[in-house]
């Protein structure tokens, strides 16, 4: 059963479309990187999948069930502003999670909290740093024993150690329980090792979707003289130029013309290429 599938999903806020005609499906057991510039519609997509926002058009399905105004029992959602009750202690917050869920593993929450060095279970939530709040929120999300984990910018306010810790916890979750993870992030370097599926959105639309290795294999970065750019075959995604040299990101590139060097892109340079393209489109 596909953990998450969207068919022609759109969301309009007054005059502006936050998400438009998005169609994609997330394969089971994958770790999906949801990337795109600020305002691309990543959060809206995740909130729609969590049943918090109703699509204006189209439909989202979670494990085959259409999402209609409430979260699917097998889904956990980490919201970007990490909503927690400030006047509760971490321990009480965990108890609250247990009290609000039919299926809940106190053991799992304890286990995750124990792995997080910076979180004191007796501290009140409001005294915690932003990073520690995120860690508590992740522990609570895992307490629901989800089969699909939706994470909105899970790494953004974590320090490097906590980021490493958190990614380990998430990857262990994938290894142990086969959980599907969809996470939005701006930290492309951290996504590289953990994500095997890419969902790149811009201006509310899906730009590329697919297995990371396959997507990377379809793209090439070519470096060569500015004057020879017309010789390149393939779909040009974006290019940066100095006075003499051009660096071009191509999809489905043809043979490399003489005088050009070919580099295989990594996730970061690929995404950056697409983001640049979107920025240029918007300017025009």
């Amino acid at each position, binding site marked *: 059963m596909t953990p998450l599938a969207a068919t022609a999903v759109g969301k309009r806020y007054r005059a502006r479309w936050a998400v438009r005609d998005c169609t994609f499906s997330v394969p089971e057991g994958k770790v999906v990187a949801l990337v795109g510039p600020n305002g691309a519609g990543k959060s809206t997509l995740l909130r729609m999948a*969590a049943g*918090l926002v109703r699509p204006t058009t189209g439909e989202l399905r979670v494990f085959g069930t259409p999402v209609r105004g409430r979260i699917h029992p097998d889904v956990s959602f980490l919201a970007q502003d990490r909503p927690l*009750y*400030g006047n509760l202690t971490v321990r009480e917050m965990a108890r*609250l999670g247990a009290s*609000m*869920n039919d299926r809940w593993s106190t053991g799992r929450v304890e286990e995750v909290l124990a792995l997080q060095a910076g979180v004191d279970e007796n501290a009140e939530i409001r005294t915690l740093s932003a990073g520690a709040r995120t860690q508590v929120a992740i522990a609570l999300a895992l307490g*629901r024993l989800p089969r699909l984990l939706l994470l909105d910018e899970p790494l953004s306010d974590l320090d490097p150690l906590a980021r490493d810790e958190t990614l380990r916890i998430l990857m262990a979750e994938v290894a142990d329980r086969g959980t599907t993870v969809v996470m939005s992030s701006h930290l492309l370097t951290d996504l590289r090792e953990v994500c095997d599926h890419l969902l790149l959105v811009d201006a509310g639309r899906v730009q590329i979707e697919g297995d990371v290795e396959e997507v990377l294999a379809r793209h090439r970065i070519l470096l060569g003289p500015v004057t020879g750019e017309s010789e390149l075959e393939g779909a040009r995604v974006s290019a940066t130029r100095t006075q003499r040299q051009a660096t071009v990101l191509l999809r489905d590139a043809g043979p490399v013309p003489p005088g050009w060097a070919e580099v295989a892109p990594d996730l970061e340079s690929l995404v950056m290429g697409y983001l640049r393209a979107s920025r240029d489109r918007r300017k025009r």
Partner: protein
Amino acid sequence: MIWATLRLQRLQLLVLIGALVVGAGVIVLLRSNMLDALASAQLTQCVTTLDECPAPDGAVKAFVTEWDYLFEAARFLIIVLPALIGVFLGAPLFAAELEQGTHVLAFTQSVSRTRWMFVKLVVALVPALVVLVLLQYLVWWWLTAAGVLGPRLNGPFNPFNFGIDHVSPAAYALVAFLLGAFLGAVTRRTLVAMTAGLTAFVALRVVLSGVASRWVPSERREAPVTSDVNLRADGGLELESGMLDAAGRPVPKGESLAVIDACKASAPEGPDAQDVFTACLAEKGSVKSYLTVIPDGSAWLAHVYDAALYGGLAVLLLAGTVWALRRQG
């Protein structure tokens, strides 16, 4: 879910319990002090009726001067409690969650939105209502002990007495609470919901005051103008009074005033002045005087209608709150 809500409402619950303990203690103490004061001023028998009061001159007046403001304070407490429940329990109930975004946390757990909402409403409202009703009972118990020396003298239809009796305070509290909750769910701002809720509730109370008694059947008391029976409301609610002509039709007010003036002017001075006056009235067509009144025994019915009116409003507000919360994302 229940634990969660109880934990999140802990402060409010503690304040309610504190208010109950303090309020109850004060009232019990005041009542016993009052009984002592009545006894020492030989006023104990005057509580049921002032007509056969053995107390020395001025004792009643002294007692009333000393205790009146305390009675007023007690009535005031029961009158404003519903508004306080609305402002401090109802308004922040959803507004604070929406303001801080914690509703997202609740909406992404396995409890349904509707269940979450109802549990929150019930956990916040029921203890508040219990405290209100207990305090209301204690105040009633105290004021009843003062009898006609206290505010009971004015009868159950006095707006302040009416507001603290029977199911009315509970009905007002229900509406104030749901009004706050609804406005909170709509505006998503605690402060706005508190102030708007309070304003709307006060306006509602003013506009709806006395509406319920219109539906309670009234009775007409009549007496010939010549008899010396004095028509009295006797604690009931006086709706209308005036003169009737020989056919039993009410004499229009203006006409009746003119007749009274004319008869007063023509009546001679002397011991039979009253007889001459009434005879003059009868002669000029005002045969009987009448009084339309809702008897004080029907006050309970007025309270039931009042509660039904506010109950209907509460249902509407509840539906509105459900709608507003389902809309939130």
